[in-house]
């Protein structure tokens, strides 16, 4: 069957853009999570017609298909299961048109997030969602996961920046959802599609909203003697009526690792540091800076460092954005979590995160979007250590449970995929999950678009038959 599918694809695309040898298939067994599956064929379409042809071929052979961008997803959303056809959009990366006046652009899904921003920088514009992986993640992947990033606090996540999307549905039809017209009567099918993790169809063109660059930006770094004091400062800034462009926090272990890596003069003796960025027009910005440098020390900030120029600002951000690389210097492996809690619960949940890591004898570092309450606990370990994986999984589950129990949610920006699929019942009742399954059926009655993700099997919640062993790695 695989050979027949591959032969059909070679005819429809071209022989060099259809791969079936085991070494290459091995590269597509998983995304940036370690949840492995297996692909039967990988293909690289160049056009919407080729995506259509690939989807139709999969349907004819009864093979599920998985859309894949840059493969930077962390929840196993692009992991192919049951010998699925992987449709990689990496060769579709053109910017098709830019309207600089009305600030929108049609782009192809394989375009990298940062390349889009670079393309429009000279126009004084940028694409607001900026995941830490923005150098390597694709717009199509951002749409599939409704991705976030540090600057989503003020500007919102991907769903707020995608105006329209051209989609190939599982029956091979092409449909445009949303578009340049802002509020056409009818259901917001565009909104429903964003964040559907490849289970509603494959995006082949995306109409993105572009955002004006701020005329002035100010970046500050505060250090604290306790993580709680940092978290309280975050709440106090928001409660004072300000929405900074970003509010990012790192705890001591993380700061130490980063400092050793980039030598930015970070306060390595502090329990936590808070990166605050405000952006906007000059008078409002100065007023906000003045209030923030009062609020910080009033809640326990030791020193407040204000970046004096663009180079220092870039250095402070480099500290934040290279945190994951820096951590590799401590232990070879890490497991990155992603949950959201109400801001006021940050101190309490962080206390629990440290206690959980202690209980499972693991090292934990926290680097997170504090303004959004979006936690990213990193469990750092060496997987050669016997039995460590079981402890990593158990600790991860405990962190997810603690976050939901605190009134939070399962995922802020990484998505559910396979990783958190079986935790969905922590947040949703059967009737809630049935409604989400109904959405899926409306878009993909065949069930061939990236099956077995997001929604736990209704027969038995927690039934992991389709998740290969080691799925929690």
């Amino acid at each position, binding site marked *: 069957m695989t050979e027949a599918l591959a032969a059909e694809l070679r005819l429809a695309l071209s022989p060099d853009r259809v791969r079936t040898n085991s070494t290459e298939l091995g590269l597509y067994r998983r995304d940036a999570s370690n949840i492995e599956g297996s692909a039967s064929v990988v293909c690289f379409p160049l056009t919407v017609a080729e995506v259509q042809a690939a989807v139709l071929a999969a349907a004819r052979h009864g093979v599920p298909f998985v859309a894949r961008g840059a493969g930077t997803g962390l929840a196993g959303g692009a992991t192919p299961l049951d010998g699925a056809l992987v449709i990689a959009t990496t060769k579709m990366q053109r910017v098709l048109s830019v*309207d600089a*006046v*009305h*600030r929108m652009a049609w782009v192809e899904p394989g375009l990298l997030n940062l390349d889009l921003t670079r393309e429009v920088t000279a126009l004084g514009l940028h694409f607001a969602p900026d995941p830490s992986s923005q150098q390597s993640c694709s717009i199509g992947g951002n749409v599939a996961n409704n991705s*976030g990033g540090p600057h989503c606090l003020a500007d*919102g*996540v991907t769903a*707020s920046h995608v105006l329209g999307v051209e989609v190939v*549905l599982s029956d091979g*039809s*092409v*449909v445009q959802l949303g578009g*340049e*017209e*802002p*509020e*056409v*009567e*009818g*259901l*917001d*099918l565009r*909104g*429903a599609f*964003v964040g559907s993790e490849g*289970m509603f169809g494959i995006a082949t063109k995306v109409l993105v909203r572009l955002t*004006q660059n701020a*005329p002035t930006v100010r970046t500050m770094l505060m250090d604290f003697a306790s993580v709680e004091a940092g978290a309280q400062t975050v*709440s106090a800034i928001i*409660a004072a*009526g300000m*929405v900074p462009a970003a509010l990012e926090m790192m705890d001591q272990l993380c700061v130490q690792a980063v400092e050793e890596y980039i030598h930015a003069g970070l306060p390595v003796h502090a329990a936590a540091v808070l990166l605050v960025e405000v952006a*906007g*027009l000059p*008078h*409002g910005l100065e*007023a906000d800076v003045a209030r923030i440098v009062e609020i910080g020390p009033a809640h326990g900030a030791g020193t407040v460092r204000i970046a004096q120029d663009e180079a220092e600002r870039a250095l402070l951000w480099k500290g934040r954005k290279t945190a994951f690389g820096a951590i590799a210097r401590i232990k070879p492996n890490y497991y990155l979590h992603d949950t*959201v809690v*109400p801001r006021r619960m940050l101190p309490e949940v962080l206390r629990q995160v440290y206690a959980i890591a202690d209980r499972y004898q693991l090292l934990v570092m926290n680097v997170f979007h504090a303004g*959004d309450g979006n936690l990213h606990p990193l469990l750092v370990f060496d997987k050669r250590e016997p039995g460590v994986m079981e402890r990593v999984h158990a600790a991860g589950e405990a962190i997810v449970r603690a976050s939901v129990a605190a009134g*939070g*949610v399962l*995922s*802020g920006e990484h998505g*559910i995929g396979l990783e*958190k699929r079986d935790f*969905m019942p922590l*947040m*949703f*009742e059967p*009737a*809630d999950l*049935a*409604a*989400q399954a*109904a*959405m899926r*059926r*409306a878009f993909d009655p065949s069930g061939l678009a990236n099956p077995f993700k*997001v929604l736990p099997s209704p027969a038995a919640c927690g039934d992991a038959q389709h998740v290969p062993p080691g799925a929690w790695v």
Partner: protein
Amino acid sequence: MGVIDLDAFAHEVGVDDPVAVAGLCTRGGGPAGVRTVAAPSGILWVQPDEMIVCCGAGTPVDELVDALAEHGQTVALPAGGTVGGALSVGHSDHRRLGYGPVRDVLLQARYVSATGDVVKAGGPTVKNVSGFDLCRLLVGARGTLGFLGEVILRTRPLPPSSQWMSAPATDPDTVFTRLHRPVSVLWNGTTVWALLEGHPFDVAEQADAAGLAACAGPPPLPQGSRRSVPPAAVVDQRGEFVTEVGVGIVHHAEPWSAPPRSARVLELTRAVKAEFDPTGRLNPGIDV
């Protein structure tokens, strides 16, 4: 934090006969000739430091806006009617350019389904990708997929100052492109109006840079039709109109019929409806 008890509302909605939902009927109300129910009303809690508020869908928007103002916040819903009505119709008001669309306001909804069940969509935090985005499907669905009972909405801080400005302009883009994130830019063919918010000095400097002078307020919006066009097409309007520059909404004195949606979009729409309300009992006769 608590939740609003939706059992009584669910019981009223029932399980089998046609039923309509209506609030204050400022947006046309539900279909005529059908048994009508009303969603619970009242604000359950306001959490200013989380920038969220929880209320019954039957709560008047103006009551919510007044309550939030006491906390120095507001919500990007159009004035008048009920919260549920504003969400179900899904029309943003003239501040969409700066405040974002209505569909970005709803974080979590608990609604009564066609089978009379209480269903939760979304979650209480601004950042949340736990499962499919059912909230965005409910906004603008005009009550045809479920009746909103309780909602958690995203709030935003009130600005330090706010001022309408205007200037004569035959091309609105010359003004539009000189402003940094204006809240609203309106144009009627000869005059441009802009709502600027923020630090009063910034507002004044922005107005100077764009050649705008303070004015009393926005022009009255023609009521013949509310059209959705590509933002680049707002300059091509003829007749009596006020356009939302940078957005693409045109308030026109003449009635209008929108260009037809594609057949596949209509099929998808019907497929969604069939999944959520197979017998068509919710707000029958309303065709989204």
